[in-house]
């Protein structure tokens, strides 16, 4: 047998070895007194003189190669032994850590939306939940005795004159414009209240995010651009948007904004009422009467405002079908976010 095929045979033998005892057996087979190497060495005298030198070198190289192989195998057997010993790791066991809590899904969505606007340069502000009738209505060009109030049924406070729980986050517009002068770019998240009977899609307490931008030369096309940036950031690059004329007393022109249904992609399904579109916010150019109330010069400045319901966006984004889940605080629900 030639030395090359012997090499292959050794490797083959070693692969089958899984204990020091077996390794010793293999070692004896090759390096023992009557082993293969001894046999090869013994065969040298029978080799023609001119080939003898070459053959001897090959046998020597084979022999030292064997020593190396056996040493390696021995090491690896020791490692294996260590694994089987007391330091064994079962990585399938649970990791040692305490449970991490979760942010409420409404907080997550609010933060996500606010941070989109922050990245565009808007600052984030807040306003009180107990408001004046003036800030909630009159200052926003909503006359007290007008059907447009119908959309804003409101909780009034007992024992205080004209104090109420804000029925939208828009009074923050009045506050911000009273306190600061343009240029302004602000979003205001917050809780709002309306006397609604509670069911799967209504709640007497919910959350909105208001946006306001006022400056020189702010225009309707800016409103469209900013809201498109927002919608793509929240709902994905592929989302389509449309602006529909609508009426809000505090903006003119006003628009309701729809996105293509994120469930069916616009084909029409039960979520979008077969329309292919989902209404997600109201918006428009700040009404000059609102500017007048806060003494901002409507000839010099213009602006846009928008408002959206956080629950609605969270429900769409997470596929939640009952608004009451947000306020039940079931840990099995909360821990999903």
């Amino acid at each position, binding site marked *: 047998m030639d030395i090359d095929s012997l090499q292959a045979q050794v490797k083959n033998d070693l692969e089958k070895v899984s204990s020091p005892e077996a390794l010793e057996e293999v070692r004896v087979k090759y390096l023992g007194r009557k082993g293969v190497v001894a046999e090869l060495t013994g065969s040298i005298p029978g080799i023609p003189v001119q080939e003898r030198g070459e053959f001897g070198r090959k046998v020597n190289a084979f022999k030292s190669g064997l020593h190396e192989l056996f040493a390696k195998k021995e090491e690896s057997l020791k490692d294996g032994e260590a694994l089987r010993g007391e330091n064994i790791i079962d990585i399938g066991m649970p990791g*040692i*850590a*305490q*449970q*991490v*809590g979760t*942010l*409420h899904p*409404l*907080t997550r969505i609010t*933060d996500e939306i606010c941070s989109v606007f922050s990245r*565009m*340069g808007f*600052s*984030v502000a*807040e306003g*009180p939940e*107990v408001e004046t009738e003036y800030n909630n209505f009159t200052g926003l060009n909503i006359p007290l*005795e007008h*059907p*447009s109030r*119908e*959309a804003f049924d409101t*909780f*009034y*406070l*007992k*024992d205080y004159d004209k104090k109420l*729980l804000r029925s939208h986050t828009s009074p923050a517009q009045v506050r911000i414009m009273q306190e600061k002068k343009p240029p302004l*770019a*602000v979003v205001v998240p917050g*809780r709002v*209240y309306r*006397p609604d009977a509670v069911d799967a899609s209504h709640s*007497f307490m919910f959350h909105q995010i208001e946006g306001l931008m006022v*400056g020189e*030369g702010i*225009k*309707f*096309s*800016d409103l*469209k*651009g900013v809201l*498109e940036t927002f919608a793509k950031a929240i709902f994905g690059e592929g989302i389509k948007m*449309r*602006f529909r*004329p*609508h*009426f809000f007393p505090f903006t*003119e*022109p006003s*628009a*309701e904004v729809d996105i293509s249904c994120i469930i069916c992609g616009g084909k029409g399904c039960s979520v979008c009422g077969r329309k292919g579109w989902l209404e997600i916010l109201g918006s428009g150019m700040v009404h*000059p009467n609102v500017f007048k109330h806060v003494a901002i010069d409507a000839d010099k400045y*213009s602006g846009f405002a928008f408002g959206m319901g956080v629950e609605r966006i969270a429900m769409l984004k997470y596929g939640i079908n009952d608004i009451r889940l947000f*306020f*039940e*605080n*079931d*840990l099995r629900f909360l821990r999903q976010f």
Partner: protein
Amino acid sequence: MKTTYQWLKDFVEIKIPPEELADKLTMAGLEVVFLEKKGDDFVFEIEITSNRPDWLSVSGIAREVAAITGGKLKNAPVFSAPRKIPGRKIAGLSIEVGIEDKKDCPIYLARILRNVKVGPSPEWIKKRLELVGCRSINNVVDITNYVLFESGEPLHAFDLDKLASGKITVRRAKDKEKLLTIDGAENSLLPENLVIADSNRAVAVAGVMGGKESEVDFGTKHILLEAALFNPVIIRRSRQLLGKTTEASYRFERGVDPEAPERASRRAAQLLKDLCGAEDAGMAARGSAGRKTVTVDLDTGYLSRILGVCLGCAQAKKILLGLGFKVKLKAKNVLRVEVPSFRQDVKQPVDLIEEIARIYGYEKIPNSLPLITPDPDTGSRREIISEIKNLLVGLGLSEAITYSLVDRKGLKDAGLESETAPLSVMNPLSREQEVLRPGLALGLGRAVSFNLKQKQEYVPLFEIANVFKSGKEPEEKLALGIALSGTKSFFSGEGRVHDPASFLHLKGILEAVFSKLKLTGYEFVNLPAGRVEIFLHKNKIGSMLELGRQALDALEIKNHKVFICELFLEKVFSCALPDKKFISLPKYPGITRDISFVLKEEVSVESVIASIKENGGSLLREVKVADYYRGKQIPAGFRGLTLSCFYASAERTLTEKEIQPSHDLACEFLSRRFEVKLR
């Protein structure tokens, strides 16, 4: 508002299918929420915004269809100018009209129609009314309704013979004046209700509903047809008081076209003649449309600046003409626009800009991004809140959001009432929305109860939200609430560890919050009755409590302890994240020595540590609890405690020998002062 495809076609040429029309209407601001094929017609259900009473009529929507699609308007009389209203009394007419206050009722037209043959309506009227959701009564009533839907002007027909002869008066109701309305309800009216009265009594609630006793029925011979204009605010108040919204009140409170009454009265008279054989005996009238023409100047430069798209005079003019405005060029780039009577919502240039943008198409306006000047000085409060929330989440708590409105009884039953009366709501829909919560404990307690009922073994929740208090002005303050209940279990190197919630867990969480915010100078102070108060720079900022039996019973929590803390955040914000200066690290290592001893339960660890610090000499830098235990080796009423004392010097490395005297002193003081047994 419902209308039908065929009915619209009475007034405007339509060359596009209903689906396409619905889409165009939606994109012009008349949102079609429902489109349904009914027989050979299509019903459009359109959501009409409250600023557009002119769209509460088939003819008004037809005008819009013409503007959007370019289709021609038909049936001109419906859109024509009204005729001059005749004087107040007509010779030979048996009736006279009186208006108590012109502000309540600017126009009242009473037309007399004789020899009306009351019977069922022709099929085409019945069918159309049915399609828009109106029940057929008889031909006379149906005609008044038909004209209402067609023109937007509510009409009412009285049985003339059931009215006391002579005079119709529009006046305020007397206090507690009685009127039986056609819905069969006996109403007790107030002076805030406007009524139509004959010489004896009220016969209709103006603009809301007619009276039963003067109703047209199959025996009626002669009728008085009312077409009027009422003050929107009064009609709104009146129907709110009565709790009745009708097709009539809905339109009057939004504002009816002052030119509509005359036209509608004429149109109805024609139909009554044609379909019921009535003879028009003339009309008594009071008031007039009497409206000043409104003109608005529109600068097309302003138009383009607001919209962000360049629109010229010609384009703007064309759109406005299509919508029924009269337009002249006043100066270069300035249009003088005369507003028609049915568009009382248009008062200033922006109103015209919306009209132009609407018809031009919002979708054709490009998107642009404005240059924003960032405001650097906001948001720090929000960032702190966010830090707190993220830390609490990292500590294993989940964020809850509970209702700010709660029931008075819930607070009382749980013993969680505040010292001052809570802020209460004037018009709650239910008891659950009666008052604004004075604290977060009730909401969190309820959330804990809910979760324990779901068999959660450990409930760690927090909420950051406003709580409310009555005062000279209503107060709202931002608070952090944390609730812990049940037993936390988790793996350690030795296997599962069970760790029941306790006051010290709450304390540890708060300490982590304070440490994260770099707050110093806070104190936890024990009070009797399972309560701990929290102070920051000597100001009380919150408390911790274990819910007592009363609260647990009220919340239906059994076999579980509940620990709740509430912290007012305003003070925390003002002290949080102070500007820090780096303190150089110690150059020389220090030495730690432990003292183990047994201490009476009633002696507070805090006082022991404070005393040791005071008496341990200048090298003693810090004293901490290293361990504590209660168990077999410790006698009852005592606990084992190990304190670790850290000695260090800024000048040199200390030796054991050097600190021994200080340490001995501390130990000796400890055993003397607190009678502890050193171990």
